[in-house]
């Protein structure tokens, strides 16, 4: 009964979505662009992502990264990739209805996107049913390629299992024992913190959880949370929060002077996406992990990528630009490798595929379709008058990937 009701509802949504789409198309006066006749039909990617609201900054970066990859592939005479985008407004139900619309009406060959983790999981479920492969470059939940993984879903960004493990490795190198955990009360926050905590207790059995606080997504005032945590006097505060909330949280850390008393760890603390909006009000000393910075790793490959991205969009690429870029690159190389536009053959080619990326060699792991890239860790600091990451170290991908056994065990449950 329940599933019937759900189906009926999503059907209505699809219809509503398509009606809206038709209206939008009519209003903007653009029909579908004419397809160039080549010997091989272009692969069409349908991107569902959050282009409005607090998380829009990520979707914009990943889309620009993807567009750059598509352009580079074509310039090198590789396969032609087309794409269309849809805005899910960070709502998982919209992610699915747009995904269905893209597959049924736009006849896309691949799906991609979804910054919202719950949206990624929902679209992934649909990808499994419809056998349309889905490249995730936005949703960070470990369940996407973990327990809910399947043949038709790939992830080109480090998920919360990897980030959590990286954070645990970083924290295990410190002497902190009493830990307070906190975060946004949704999939990303809980998933990141759970992974970090379970890895940290394995790496450093003497750590003790003092307490936890969870705030709602879109919280505007973090001072009461910080004040309460400060009074508990933990050795370290570990935070899982993202997007606009991360910036608001960092502002409150600065205003309350929390880091002078209690060290803070938060993923992406020294990412430009976090630091730029903070201006000169970034809290120094906040520890964190980061999969990518435009100035780290300091390699020729990364410099070339940054150069190309800057030329195209007049700004430095952030981590999500890399994820979208890798999504495009993996797809392009897989099509070339498969020598076919057959979806099943492309999937086979993608499994275990290793490509060169700005951060070095990256592999889409055969067993779980999860990308393995290195990650940096460090602290927020002012260097030459600019806030950035300092004391950066690299964790190799094999140090921070969850084991294949672990993944397969969680899937068999």
């Amino acid at each position, binding site marked *: 009964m329940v599933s019937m009701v759900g189906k009926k509802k999503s059907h209505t949504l699809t219809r509503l979505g398509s009606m809206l789409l038709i209206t939008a198309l009519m209003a903007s006066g653009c029909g579908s662009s004419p397809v160039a006749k080549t010997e091989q039909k272009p692969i069409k990617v349908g991107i569902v992502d959050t*282009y*409005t*609201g*607090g998380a*829009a*900054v990520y979707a*914009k970066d990943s889309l620009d990264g993807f567009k750059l990859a598509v352009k580079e592939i074509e310039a090198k005479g590789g396969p032609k990739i087309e794409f269309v985008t849809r805005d899910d407004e960070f709502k998982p139900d919209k992610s699915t209805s747009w995904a269905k619309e893209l597959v049924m009406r736009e006849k896309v060959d691949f799906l991609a996107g979804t910054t919202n983790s719950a949206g990624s999981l929902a679209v992934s479920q649909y990808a499994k049913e419809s056998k349309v492969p889905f490249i995730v470059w936005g949703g960070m939940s470990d369940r996407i390629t973990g327990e809910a993984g399947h043949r038709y879903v790939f992830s080109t960004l480090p998920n919360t299992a990897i980030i959590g493990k990286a954070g645990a490795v970083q924290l295990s190198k410190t002497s902190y024992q009493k830990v307070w955990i*906190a975060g946004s*009360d949704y999939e990303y926050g809980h998933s990141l913190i759970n992974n970090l905590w379970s890895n940290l207790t394995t790496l450093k059995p003497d750590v003790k959880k003092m*307490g*936890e*606080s*969870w*705030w*709602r997504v*879109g*919280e*505007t*005032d973090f*001072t*009461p*949370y910080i*004040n*309460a*945590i*400060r*009074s508990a006097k933990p050795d370290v505060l570990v935070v899982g929060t993202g*997007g*606009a*909330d991360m*910036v*608001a949280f960092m*502002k*409150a850390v*600065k*205003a*309350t*002077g929390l880091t002078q008393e209690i060290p803070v760890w938060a993923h992406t603390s020294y990412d430009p996406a976090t630091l730029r*909006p*903070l*201006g*000169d*009000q970034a809290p120094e000393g906040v520890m964190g992990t980061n999969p990518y910075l435009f100035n780290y790793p300091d390699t020729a490959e990364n410099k070339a990528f940054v150069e190309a991205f800057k030329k195209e969009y007049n700004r430095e690429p952030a981590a999500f630009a890399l994820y979208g870029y890798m999504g495009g690159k993996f797809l392009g190389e897989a099509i070339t490798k498969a020598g076919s536009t057959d979806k099943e053959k492309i999937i086979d080619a993608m499994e275990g595929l290793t490509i060169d990326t700005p951060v070095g060699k990256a592999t889409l792991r055969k067993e779980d379709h999860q990308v393995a890239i290195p990650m940096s860790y460090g602290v927020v600091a002012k260097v030459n008058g600019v806030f950035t990451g300092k004391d950066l170290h690299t964790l190799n991908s094999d140090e921070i990937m969850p084991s294949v056994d672990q993944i397969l065990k969680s899937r068999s449950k």
Partner: protein
Amino acid sequence: MDFATLASQFFIGLSRGMIFFIVSAGLTLIFGVLRITNFAHGALYMLGAFIAYSVSTLVGQGPYGFWLALLVAPVTVMLVSLVIERGLLRFIYNRDHLIQMLLTYSLVLIAGDLVKILWGTEFKSMDIPAVLRGSFNLWGASLPWYNAFLLIVGPVVALGLWLFLSKTHLGKICRATATDREMVDVLGINSTRVFAMVFALGGWLAGLGGALIAPTTSISMGMDASIVIYAFLIVVIGGLGNVWGALISSIIMGVGEALGILFIPGIAIIIPYIIAGVLLIVRPTGLLKSAW
């Protein structure tokens, strides 16, 4: 748990309550006098925050940016409210509540798209003015200067509202309209002008709330939805249309939530609803006399 922590948490909660009060006072005033459920109140608050961002950015996020924004943003939102009232709302005063709700709800959607067009989809951030940065020592605990600043602004606004409502002719008409609308009509008072002014005042308060919260957080679409839930809870708890009821319930809500975060952090997210639920069971008609 030491006294200093409790005290600082109390003051932080109180400053949170001040923002709630400034926003919900406008909502309850409109409720009481115009008898309109203004869903768009949160949108006006969001607009206030975005305008504050633009103003402070225009003057280069400099030392005067915030203060200028604090003046300009509420007044701009007030003018927008005036346009909304004269252009739309005045035609539906005698219509169904459902029509009124639909209209104000449509304004929420329009405001969302307007923000998208004018400011783009990315969240914005503006600086706390230099003099209000950092925090000071309060018996061993710490309190950010900005929260202390809110603790001054809140009572100033409350005092201003009290002077307006009890000392001015217009304020008296407002109160009279909230208490007995027909009697005011019978006395031959031009109520539509009063309505326009009250709606504009409500808009000014929403804009002020938005401008005040802007430097402490990230300014993004969706911030309207989160405040409007609090504002409605507060207005209902305080007694519909009663400004002082809104003041009391804002303080209860702000302090209650802050203390909840201190003592039961695991369920902090549902504390406002627990407070609202308990208060409504104890006093179903609101803390103070409702205007309806």
